[in-house]
């Protein structure tokens, strides 16, 4: 049983990790804690639902359209409407703005798609595959594979392309990057686009495992938790944190009770923050007076 719980935990953890990576990228570049990440995940699931199930488009096309829509959401709403007017504001002001935005998006989803929960179909077979002592489905293998591929692509992008380097430079020092000729607002926009796409992808992958409804965004707290577990601002940390969280959650659900998952998440968050108030690898936030 243990192996089974760990295996399912890793699958869900991969999705958390994807969302947490986007979240961390946004935090690193714009110093904004995206409290609406759960809602962009929820909208990602709804976009795919619309394109794939309601409009009956082929899956690859639906997925592509979903990512485009998520990118547009990231650019128009997150970047232009919220992040850019508040670029000089304090961190907490931006958090409040994003809390407001998350509520608006939730209301909008309820308005457009109704309050009912939908089942999001997946084109991938759910035939079980024996993997050592655990049974996993093809769909789950694809989730893990997709995560590895995306993280790998992001790594290559950050490491070897000029744009990736400009993004890393911006997160190290906005000012120095601007002085070196980096278009900082452009980088912010790109970061929001990629970050929102990643969380939408999280919704796309998570949708078939859960039900899609307007309150789905409360999963967002899990990607915060994943990011905190790994230390805020560290991308490898976010990946490890996501997988760790998925595994712990599944162990709680398997050995204690399924509905205790959220409490398990909360306790894990508390435990890590009690030991290290800024996360496992996070830097100190103390400032001088």
């Amino acid at each position, binding site marked *: 049983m243990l192996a089974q719980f760990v295996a399912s935990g890793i699958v869900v953890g991969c999705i958390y990790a994807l969302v947490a990576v986007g979240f961390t990228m946004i935090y690193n570049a714009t110093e904004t*804690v995206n*409290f609406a990440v759960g809602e962009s995940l929820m909208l990602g699931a709804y976009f795919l639902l619309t394109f794939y199930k309601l409009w009956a488009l082929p899956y690859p096309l639906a997925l592509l359209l979903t990512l485009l829509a998520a990118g547009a959401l990231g650019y128009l709403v997150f970047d232009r409407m*919220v992040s850019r*007017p*508040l670029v000089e*504001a304090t*961190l*907490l*002001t931006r*958090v*409040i*703005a994003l*809390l*407001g*935005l*998350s*509520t*608006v*998006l*939730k*209301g*909008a989803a*309820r*308005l457009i798609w109704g*309050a009912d929960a939908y089942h999001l179909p997946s084109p991938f077979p759910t035939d079980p595959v024996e993997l050592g002592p655990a049974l996993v489905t093809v769909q789950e293998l694809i989730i893990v594979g997709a995560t590895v591929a995306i993280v790998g692509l992001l790594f290559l992008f950050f490491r070897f392309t000029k744009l990736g380097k400009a993004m890393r430079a911006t997160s190290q020092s906005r000012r120095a990057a601007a002085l070196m000729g980096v278009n900082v607002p452009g980088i912010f926009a790109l970061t929001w686009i990629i970050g929102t796409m990643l969380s939408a992808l999280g919704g796309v992958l998570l949708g078939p495992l859960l039900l899609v409804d307007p309150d789905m965004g*409360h999963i967002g*707290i899990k990607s*915060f*938790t994943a990011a*905190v577990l790994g230390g805020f601002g560290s991308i490898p940390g976010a990946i490890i944190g996501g997988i760790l969280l998925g595994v712990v959650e599944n162990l709680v659900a398997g050995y204690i009770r399924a*509905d*205790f998952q*959220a*409490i398990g*998440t*909360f306790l894990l*968050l*508390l435990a890590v*923050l*009690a030991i290290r*108030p*800024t*996360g496992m690898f996070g830097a100190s*936030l*103390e400032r*001088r*007076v």
Partner: protein
Amino acid sequence: MKAALDALRRRWAWIGRHPYVVALCILAIAFAVTPLLDNYALFVVSLVCVYAIFATGYNLLMGYAGQFDVGQAAFLALGAYGSAVMQNSFAMPVLPSLLVGAAVSVLAGLFIGVVVLRLRHFYLALVTLAFSQAVVLVLSLWRDVTKGFQGLPVHSLDILGLGRNVSAYLVIVTFAVLLVTLARNLARSDLGRAFEAIRESEVAAQAMGINLVRTRLTAYAVSAFYGGIAGGLLAVLLSYITPEGFTIFETIKVLAMIVVGGMGSIFGGLLGASLLTLGNELLRFSQFFQEIGFGLLLLVSIIVMPDGIVGLVRRLGARYGRRG
């Protein structure tokens, strides 16, 4: 313009000097107009008062003490459920059960206050958000006591045979005037100054001899008390409570109230609570319009007027008032 504003300011300056007179006047007017109000008006004014209490408590924690808490709905929930469980399981009368609810809420406030003592900024927001989700979850899972999603009935008040609506109105208005006056005094006491000091800089506040741990915990306890009383009163007003009534949306509502009115100003909190509760009544027919309305208001006002209406008026006053 300048002279007129100054004259206005002088004429109304006594209000600030005689808070108790003002409080008693408001209370007297509220009691006197009772026969004029129909049931719906009684309900709406009571609701405004409940949110005024809730917003005032949140404002003390968030606006004054600068503790970025986004789990305030948990205190509302614990106050409501604390009193409802006392009434249902122990047959306690309504008024004492309110105090038990508030006590439960204060205990939770102290607990979360201790938990987040070492945390700052958004870490605090994160933990309190998770806490409030955990509270809602516990309320929906602990079926033996809370009946889960089915919800709990709450007894109505009846004072001197005045009927449930009038009784609830009188009790809620009295609580609101009392607690808001208390909060106004607290904000001006040395504790209130200490709250503001730790908001501005914890290190500097400590250097001035402020006990950081005690002050932060006091802020949590006071705020939880207000939230708990507001929760108990809300339960009396609604006469039925379910866990879904205390999700993050309640926190967003009260956050929007103090942001629109003005964070760090008791009056601003009252203003926001009144405006938004009345606005919410207009949107009551649909949940999504409520969500979009509150969310947009929060989003737009934090961008356009970060200090709320009170800050906006103060800025205009400084521009046109004394010595320009």
